[in-house]
């Protein structure tokens, strides 16, 4: 089951986006302790609302214990400023994948295994990542894989 999503970050006047927050790794990390006000679950809860009382009252669902794309983009900036560009890029790809259901993430992973997909199948996955989920970084990774797999002859025949 694939469903489109609407979590693409939009710049709305008066709303701070991850790129606008003033962040300093030395001052602000770990975010949970130093900048909890920046952290929301994908369901819109504040991290300090995830209390034992709320869990026992049935007010916390497994979906509330997930990371939001905005948080991953904040952590990407911390990684970048700590001199870790690859880690930052991984967090940005991850931010895109927060919108995908678990089963779809697992199925794309399996499609990327050697000799699991034709070039067309990988291209279709990349197109869907981009069009349905605005996952441009992940789409680029899949397209790059498709090209390499073709050159190294590890596409499905």
């Amino acid at each position, binding site marked *: 089951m694939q469903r489109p999503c609407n979590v693409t970050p939009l710049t709305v006047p008066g709303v701070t986006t991850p790129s606008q927050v003033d962040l300093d790794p030395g001052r602000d990390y770990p975010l*949970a302790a130093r900048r909890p006000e920046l952290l929301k679950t994908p369901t819109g809860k504040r991290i300090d609302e*995830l209390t034992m009382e709320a869990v026992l009252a049935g007010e916390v669902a*497994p979906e509330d*214990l*997930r990371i939001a794309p905005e948080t991953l983009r904040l952590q990407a900036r911390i990684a970048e400023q*700590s001199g870790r560009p690859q880690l930052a890029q991984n967090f940005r790809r991850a931010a*895109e994948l927060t919108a995908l259901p678990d089963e779809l993430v697992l199925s794309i992973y*399996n499609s990327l295994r050697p000799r699991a997909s034709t070039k067309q199948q990988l291209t279709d996955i990349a197109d869907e990542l981009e069009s349905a989920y605005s996952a441009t970084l992940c789409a680029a990774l899949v397209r790059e*894989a498709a090209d390499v797999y073709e050159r190294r002859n*590890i596409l499905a025949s």
Partner: protein
Amino acid sequence: MTTSARRSKRTEALEQRPVNLDGFVEEWPEVGMVAMDSPYDPEPGVRVENGVIVELDGKPRAEFDFLDQFIADHAIDVEATEQAMAIPAVDIAHLLIDPRATRKDVLAVSRGLTPAKLLEVVKTMNVVEMMMALQKMRARRTPANQAHATSARDNPVQVAADAAEASLRGFRELETTLGVVRYAPLVAIALQVGAQAGTPGVLTQCALEEATELELGMRGITAYAETISVYGTEPVFCDGDDTPWSKAFLASAYASRGIKMRFTSGTGSEVQMGNAEGKSMLYLEIRCILVTKGAGVQGLQNGSISCIGVPGAVPAGIRAVLAENLIASMVDLECASGNDQSFSHSDMRRVARLLPQLLPGTDFVCSGYSSTPNYDNMFAGSNVDAEDYDDWNVLQRDLQVDGGLRHVPEAELLAVRNRAARALQGVFAHLGLPPITDKEIEAVTYAHGSKDLPPRDVLEDLKAAQSVMDRGVTGLDIVKGLDAAGFTDMAHSLLAVLRQRVSGDLLHTSAILTPELETLSAVNDTNDYAGPGTGYRPSGARWEEMKRLRHVVSAQNPEQEVG
């Protein structure tokens, strides 16, 4: 009687030594049976055109295999590479051991180095120099340790009790795996529960096939993942049913759920899997390290790991194992540095093999230390196990070196083992899983291994394990179960671990949770070693703790033990 048939008494004595049960072989570079010095390893070199690496270690881009391409395009900093590659290898080695050069100074160079160049650098270094370098290059200032908690019968009650003991003894990460894979959900739950019974904030994982491991992580039944294997040649990578791209995607999948993960690799895996392409074990391992770096993964478990018998059998093999830990650290990755799978029959050799990681300190000195007797270790044994706890604590005290553990009096251990088992009993009852009897709890409190425990109804357990997956049980259900059974502190601690995935703080390099549930990583606990008198040194309360052993006598009264 001829002299050749007659053996000396000394030879007979030596023949009986355990070290002669170990396997040793001659080098055979053509098939990759060589640790770090093969005539077939490429010469270092790089060529950049229009911001793209078009030649890597003597190979033109059109001939790149998929590892070359991934490393050239994702791991090596194109802006830095030509300048870094121009520095003679021996000068880079000097930078590594010179305390006046900071860790940051090294990273400015290492980000531009190719696999063959990294190999050339460590080939100029002996093991003492490598230890000096590792002391500075370890990412997290404070070293830590990881344990295995497994059971030959996959008994969840045992895993919970051993996890609790390991947690109390100081391990910050615990790993389990299975004999019967279908047992995984129950054993992973047991590990998670037991871990929180010792000290709060211990992170747990369950080593399984990649997709299953991810599923348990997504459900919050495990807290992190480690067995995401990468390999140093294209055919072996494909035999592992992955590519650098599938693994990079998997890395992002974990991060997208806020779950910490590291890759795994190690010298010897390619030759063991029959396709080393005539390269040295270390050259191939360096390619794995750079694939990890390029995938944007925060860390790596390496140090040969489950192939330790292979480098262990060839000349300078254990030097190569240290070199792989050093290279992971010098390219700014978290390093969980091996010292895990059984390695030698010789106690002397077991210790000699672990000192190069224990003395300088690594992010996790063992990955892991067996918290059970050897027969219960389902990772094919470990270099150090539960029967070595006292020896380990003495080594720490003798050398004033922090290997992450501490001596715990028996009464406290019994209490925590009992508590973990009772908590698991409560959680199983809450989740409608097969009952854990008071008899089992009593037995596991005092047990050493699975042989000391009453057998469980395996068929019922396996049915229940399937139901955990079918019903969609999550970490949150375990929290509720702990609370319902009256273990509110453990419920709080586990909720705190689960809440970490909302903040993503644990996704950073070398992150652990302290017993105070604070995140400690290379971002806020950066290794600041800069020569004598600097960096991490056990002191204060931690050193006082390290002084305690099972038997220490009072200075005033030699008849009295102060423990």
